[in-house]
């Protein structure tokens, strides 16, 4: 297959003396053929590629959750003035009330605005912490009126209690529908799932990126400099890895007031070590490659060699693990939330939704919603991981190359 002779390679396109700006741009960001084949193979993995597309769309959309599920209208026209309540906090004074921040869901304000203009609501008129005060309660098996949690309106178990006609009208209005019901504090489950998805994925991504970066740097330093640095670092890591992770996490998260960033920090303490060994091994192998030696002979400094020649090698090995780390990070956050050690009370979280479901077994819409949301995220991440793993498989990339 290798039919090249050692004559001068045949002339291709004529050689331009100077490059246009566009050509320069294109050359700077071109992909090597190996990477192009990897992307092709990733796309060829149907399930994984579709998972990636779905995940990317969901994540992108959830970034704009405020425009999808919010207790403020997107646009308000009031007395000839166009207002943007999603982006700007207007005091209630503006509409004749007295609160510092307007609650557009209260009938007084809504009627006032409707009388002098109009409101454009997002598809779901609840934020993750909005309480649906219009829910009149439902009649239970023994005829008593029960409060929250409330089942979705399309379920057969919803028989509403008596309430004033205007409250019932508001509750039954299409935009106010609680598609997946209300949780035990009267908050809309759909809104909580949307915001919880966003928090989980952001958390997972951040954890993956930062802990991988730390792990790669640590592994790179160990592998490249070797010797004593490597020896001492490895022993430290062994000690570090032998600390019982779960208990330390529990202790730490009960010591600190948990929040997004503290949780990220706490989980980081242990998750960064997982890539160190891999990157270290890649570097130990890579630093003896002849082209790395040639780079040293050309006068490149240590850091230039690390970034230009060794990191790309190690990246391929680590990329395979990233989707799996992502799913691990999301699962860890969900687990902490489920145990009640996670995000502060009131914040949207899938783990908290699962915990609600466990507390209220009579309200299956809570547990089922949480379960479906978590399993969809984790499955998407795993499928993506499989596709990435296949795409980066060196046996497929270099199959039959250099065989005579």
């Amino acid at each position, binding site marked *: 297959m290798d039919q090249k002779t050692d004559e001068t390679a045949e002339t291709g396109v*004529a050689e331009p003396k100077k490059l246009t700006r566009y050509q320069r741009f294109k050359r700077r960001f071109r992909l090597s053929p190996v990477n192009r084949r990897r992307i092709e193979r990733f796309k060829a993995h149907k399930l994984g590629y579709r998972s990636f597309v779905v995940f990317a769309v969901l994540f992108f959309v959830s970034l704009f959750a405020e425009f999808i599920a919010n207790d403020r209208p997107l646009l308000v026209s009031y007395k000839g003035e166009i207002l943007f309540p999603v982006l700007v906090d207007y005091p209630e004074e503006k509409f004749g009330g007295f609160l510092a921040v307007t609650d557009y869901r209260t009938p007084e304000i809504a009627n006032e605005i409707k009388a002098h203009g109009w409101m454009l609501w997002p598809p779901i008129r609840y934020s993750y912490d909005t309480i649906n005060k219009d829910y009149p309660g439902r009649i239970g098996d023994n005829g008593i009126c029960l409060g929250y949690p409330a089942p979705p309106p399309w379920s057969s178990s919803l028989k509403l209690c008596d309430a004033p006609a205007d409250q019932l009208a508001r509750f039954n209005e299409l935009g106010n529908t609680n598609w997946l019901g209300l949780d035990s504090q009267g908050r809309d489950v759909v809104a909580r799932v949307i915001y919880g998805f966003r928090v989980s994925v952001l958390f997972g991504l951040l954890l993956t990126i930062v802990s991988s970066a730390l792990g790669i740097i640590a592994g790179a330093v160990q592998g490249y400099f070797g010797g004593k640095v490597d020896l001492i670092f490895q022993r430290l890591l062994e000690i570090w890895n032998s600390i019982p992770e779960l208990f330390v996490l529990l202790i730490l998260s009960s010591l600190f007031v948990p929040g997004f960033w503290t949780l990220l920090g706490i989980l980081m303490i242990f998750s960064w070590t997982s890539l160190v060994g891999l990157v270290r091994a890649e570097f130990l192998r890579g630093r003896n490659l002849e082209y790395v030696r*040639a780079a040293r002979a050309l006068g490149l400094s240590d850091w230039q060699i690390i970034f230009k020649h060794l990191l790309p090698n190690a990246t391929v090995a680590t990329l395979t693990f990233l989707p799996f780390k992502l799913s691990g990070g999301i699962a860890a956050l969900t687990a902490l939330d489920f145990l009640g050690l996670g995000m502060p009370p009131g914040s949207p979280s899938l783990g908290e939704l699962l915990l609600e479901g466990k507390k209220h077994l009579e309200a299956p819409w809570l547990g089922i919603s949480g379960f479906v949301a978590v399993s969809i995220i984790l499955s998407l991440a795993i499928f993506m991981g499989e596709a990435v793993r296949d795409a980066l498989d060196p046996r497929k990339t270099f199959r039959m190359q250099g065989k005579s």
Partner: protein
Amino acid sequence: MADNAPLVDVRNLSVAFSDDAGTTRVVNDVSFHIDKRETVALVGESGSGKTVSAMSILQLLPNSASYPTGEILFEGKDILKLKPAQLRDIRGRRISIIFQEPMTTLNPLHTIEVQVGEIIKLHQGLSDSETRKRVIELLSKVGIRDPEKRLSAYPHQLSGGQRQRVMIAIALANEPDLLIADEPTTALDVTIQAQILELLKSLQKEMGMAMLLITHDLGIVRRMAERVYVMRNGEIVETGNTEDIFTAPKHPYTRHLIEAEPKGDPPAVDTSRPVVVETDNLKVWFPIKRGWLQKTVDYVKAVDGLSMKVRAGETLGVVGESGSGKTTLGLAILRLLSSEGPIAYVGNRIDGLTNKQMRPLRKEMQIVFQDPYGSLSPRLTVEQIIEEGLLIQNPELDEDGRRERVATALREVGLDPATRDRYPHEFSGGQRQRIAVARAMVLKPKFVMLDEPTSALDMSVQAQIVDLLRDLQKKNDLAYLFISHDLKVVRALCNYVIVMKNGKVVEEGPARNIFDHPQDDYTKALLDAAFNITVTHRAALAT
């Protein structure tokens, strides 16, 4: 079956490989036969399909291989149609194989006894003690001294030549009818090559087996084979008795192969030229550390007291077997390894400089490595590879300036500048070595260390690279430090030669004197092994 029927008869064989991109035919309608007790050589350059043809006899090709046409008759039965069990019966018992790379074909986790014994037990079903006896017998037959003591040795405790001997012992354990030797000596030093070939020849005579020799080295063919098939691009272009092929080659490609030997004369010695690099009593000692406190108990003396001089426009050849310290010497001179003793570059001491202080000098002292596959990063285009040094050493150049320099360097080494956007895997071995040379030359160095730049290449390509190096030297007044075990190339390129053994200089002098009147036995043995492929002066050689 008639007694004069061929042992293996390959008829109209084609082999194709399929992958994502489609199907590629690698071997096209090839026919050859091997008679009993005869040695047949398949000759060709890399990529000619010779290995694939031979591997298909044992069905050792990966699953992506298919056989669109042809049959392979072994004693009248078509191997392509055999069931796996029947095939296993042939493999290792009737037909066995020796691979090119003795470093990787032995399992590093098993002792020699286990690895040689395995195949005996498998096919002959002997008891443990009988097997051991047979292993010892085989090991002594392939020329391993004290075989009883070597039984419990692991592969890493043996030298390359010894490993290849063990491989031969494994291949011959069941007294096969056919031995396939796939470049059996390419990875070995010339002296060991001669010993191994001698061993194969005598064992073949003793055991009465046939041998299929695959090689690109016509010197070996001439010495070993009775008949030759010349392959090119998956086809056999010429066949005949060895003598006929060598005395009257018909096909132009065969003629090209036979004539492709490094030729030409090195530059003349001129003591008036300035000295570029000089060392005096240079030592590279690696400490051996033992015990809990890592106390240094001894040293591996890789280079032990070496003094040398290279003048502008001259080539100093450093010759020796692997392990003699010649590459270590080169790396130490370029300060890529730490060493003791003065090193001077155009009169200035450089042995005390830090990495940072060395950096500006790097552009004047360059290096070309042995392996054109390993020395080019697969992720970078040719242009990126060549301009890497310019980015560091000539930061004043803008992009257009760099492009110009890269184009000039590519033209200098005989490549079209339009190929600059391609990646290394799109080039042949010789072209890659040209790229590696261009990477060194683009910085306009004064001194270049060439570390076996031709050893990984086919014979005919070697000659081209040698010509290229000589031209570049003349044009740019370069000083070369040429490190090689291949004396044919050294003779064509070097005007002064140092012969090294175990880190020490055995003999040195102007190249002509060394080649015409070698004084030391070791030098004589090297010369005989390289030019006549024979073993002489055994006492001076390692095994």
